[in-house]
């Protein structure tokens, strides 16, 4: 009996002292402010306090009269009744997917109703990631991409970030609670000697990037927290370095903050290849052309004629050009090989991560004739090979090479009797590409818009572009 009581007490103690399950939370990201709210459960539904959700955006006050709850936000009134599913927002009827809950003076609305309420009240567009409980207001979003750099890998963000960084064997985790980090792709496969992949996930109001390392990693902030540089942890770096390197790579940017790695053993979760050498990190990567078929997925691009979508034309043309390049012995990779959406900046990040030699952004138009070749509208700037390049002007170092390549391509188009012109233009995402980068816009051959889809016409252009790249290869290599 006593023994049973002791066991029962121990079980009770264990249950009582066990850590509570992770509390549910919602993260709201706005252009000016980001915050998190606790989420409570009522009748198996998620609820949030409406007053707390609106507080960061202006003057807000609430009053309770019996079962009626009124909230005033700036000059707008919101009214709900306890257990009712219909209320009023600015004197207009507003339906809730579940009954309104009154907890003392706190008015709780179903979480699923919050995006609609904020859209009405704040007059802004919202995007709600329901499974992850992340709510984006007014297009707030931070995109990221990875780029190889001397001695490591840089993960570049479109705005400053402040993640919590932790390490565990084989992995480095970045957890973003206040940063609206989003990703078009779930996992970014890399051929870096340090990192094999970067996986994006989001859950419970947080986003997480998990970097699968080939060696224990150290993270450093740079570029005003827009970049996180991943390098081999000190012990690994020493073992990675040759005994007496003839050349030393330029030092990495002074880190704003350094997160010391947790004392980890050799990564267990990933296969550990031989440590990279400095030569392998600084060696010139192979000559690869990245073909970026413009638009895709939800972004159809221009409408050529009545039904023809630019995204379909660019994809067909990119596939043709890939075959043409491969027939000349040049490796070509595609940003997309299906009708999928890829954010514009992500495309540049992919080119930078792959350290391609040439990046071609492919577009189609119904206006004009022939082919237009564009280069970035940036001034040339010199920097030593391997030096850190600012995201907004990464192309500056390569723009002269890009223009030289554009001249060559134009000449080759001329040889194939395809009318062409060449300009500098503010085309996204050329400015962010750290390689020779061109945007190529294919226009109809004559008055018939559908001629941009003709196999023979596309083939002639693809052949001319491929020959242009073959001829311009040595000029491009000189800049790498």
């Amino acid at each position, binding site marked *: 009996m006593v023994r049973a009581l002791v066991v029962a007490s121990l079980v009770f103690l264990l249950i009582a002292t066990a850590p509570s399950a992770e509390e549910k939370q919602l993260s709201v990201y706005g252009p000016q402010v980001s915050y998190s709210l606790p989420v409570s459960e009522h009748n198996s539904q998620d609820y949030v306090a409406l007053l707390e959700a609106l507080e960061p955006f202006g003057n807000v006050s609430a009053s309770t009269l019996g079962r009626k709850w009124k909230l005033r936000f700036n000059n707008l009134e919101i009214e709900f009744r306890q257990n009712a599913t219909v209320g009023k927002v600015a004197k207009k009827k507003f339906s809730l997917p579940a009954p309104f809950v009154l907890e003392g003076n706190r008015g709780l609305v179903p979480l699923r109703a919050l995006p609609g309420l904020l859209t009405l009240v704040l007059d802004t567009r919202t995007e709600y990631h329901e499974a992850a409980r992340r709510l984006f207001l007014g297009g707030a979003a931070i995109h990221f991409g990875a780029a190889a750099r001397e001695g490591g890998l840089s993960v570049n963000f479109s705005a400053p970030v402040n993640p919590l960084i932790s390490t565990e064997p084989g992995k480095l985790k970045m957890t973003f609670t206040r940063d609206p980090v989003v990703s078009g792709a779930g996992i970014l496969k890399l051929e870096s000697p340090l990192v094999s992949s970067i996986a994006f996930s989001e859950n419970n109001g947080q986003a997480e990037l998990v970097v699968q390392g080939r060696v224990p990693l150290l993270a450093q902030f740079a570029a005003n927290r827009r970049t996180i540089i991943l390098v081999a942890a000190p012990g690994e770096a020493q073992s990675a370095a040759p005994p007496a390197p003839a050349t030393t790579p330029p030092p990495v940017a002074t880190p704003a903050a350094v997160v010391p790695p947790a004392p980890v053993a050799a990564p267990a979760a990933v296969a550990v290849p031989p440590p990279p050498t400095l030569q392998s990190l600084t060696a010139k990567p192979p000559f690869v052309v990245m073909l970026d078929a413009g638009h895709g997925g939800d972004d159809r691009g221009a409408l050529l004629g009545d039904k023809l979508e630019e995204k379909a034309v660019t994809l067909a043309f990119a596939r043709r050009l890939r075959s043409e390049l491969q027939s000349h012995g040049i490796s070509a990779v595609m940003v997309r090989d299906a009708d999928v959406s890829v954010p*514009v900046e992500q495309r540049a990040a992919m080119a930078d991560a792959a350290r391609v030699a040439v990046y071609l952004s492919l577009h189609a*138009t119904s206006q004009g004739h022939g082919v237009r070749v564009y280069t970035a509208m940036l001034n040339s700037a010199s920097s030593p090979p391997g030096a850190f390049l600012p995201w907004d002007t990464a192309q500056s170092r390569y723009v002269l090479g890009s223009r030289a390549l554009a001249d060559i391509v134009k000449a080759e188009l001329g040889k194939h009797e395809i009318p062409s012109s060449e*300009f*500098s*233009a503010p*085309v*996204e995402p050329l400015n962010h590409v750290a390689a020779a980068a061109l945007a190529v*816009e294919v226009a109809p051959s004559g008055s018939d818009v559908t001629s941009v889809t003709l196999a023979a016409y596309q083939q002639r252009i693809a052949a001319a572009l491929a020959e242009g790249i073959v001829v311009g290869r040595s000029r491009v290599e000189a800049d790498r």
Partner: protein
Amino acid sequence: MTRALTIATALLLAAVVAMGAYLYYLRRNEQARARDLPDTRPISAPVVGPASPVTLYLAYDDPGVLRPQQVSIPLPADPAQRGREILHALVGEYVKRPSSHELGAGADVKDVFLVNGNTAVVDTTPAFAEEHPSGILVETLTVASLVKTLTANLSGVTRVKILVDGEERETLAGHADLEDFYDVTAVEQMLQQLQ
């Protein structure tokens, strides 16, 4: 009440209900259509006063160039407001039909702000971007036309930023970059290539 009268009354009532439901359906459709239409209301009161000569740099899609055109419009004294009126006149040429560079109904410039005397921030209506034709050249011409017209008429402006409904936007209609400030010298160089 005879049986025939009962049937006639029932039919009439059914017709009334059906008509009511149809009217409700039409009203909802009309409201939805009105919501989806771009807002074409004027965004500022018209300026009155003596007209001043202004040079607009109009985009021509077919040859892909800008061409100057002299117009006379009333201009306020404040430089920023003057910039807004000049760009309002420019975009007005593009929403006319026919136009050398057609923009969608509701495209307009809401405001122009001058920062430190050398930076102009041009705020446009949502329809300016949402109804804009998509294409590298056509979008580039719009940007160049705004920048060139503004700087030709407002001295000292060296950088121009374009916003859409008060917010930064990645691209105008899928191609031209709207995230960065436009350097006036770089736009001039680009225009020389276009001419």
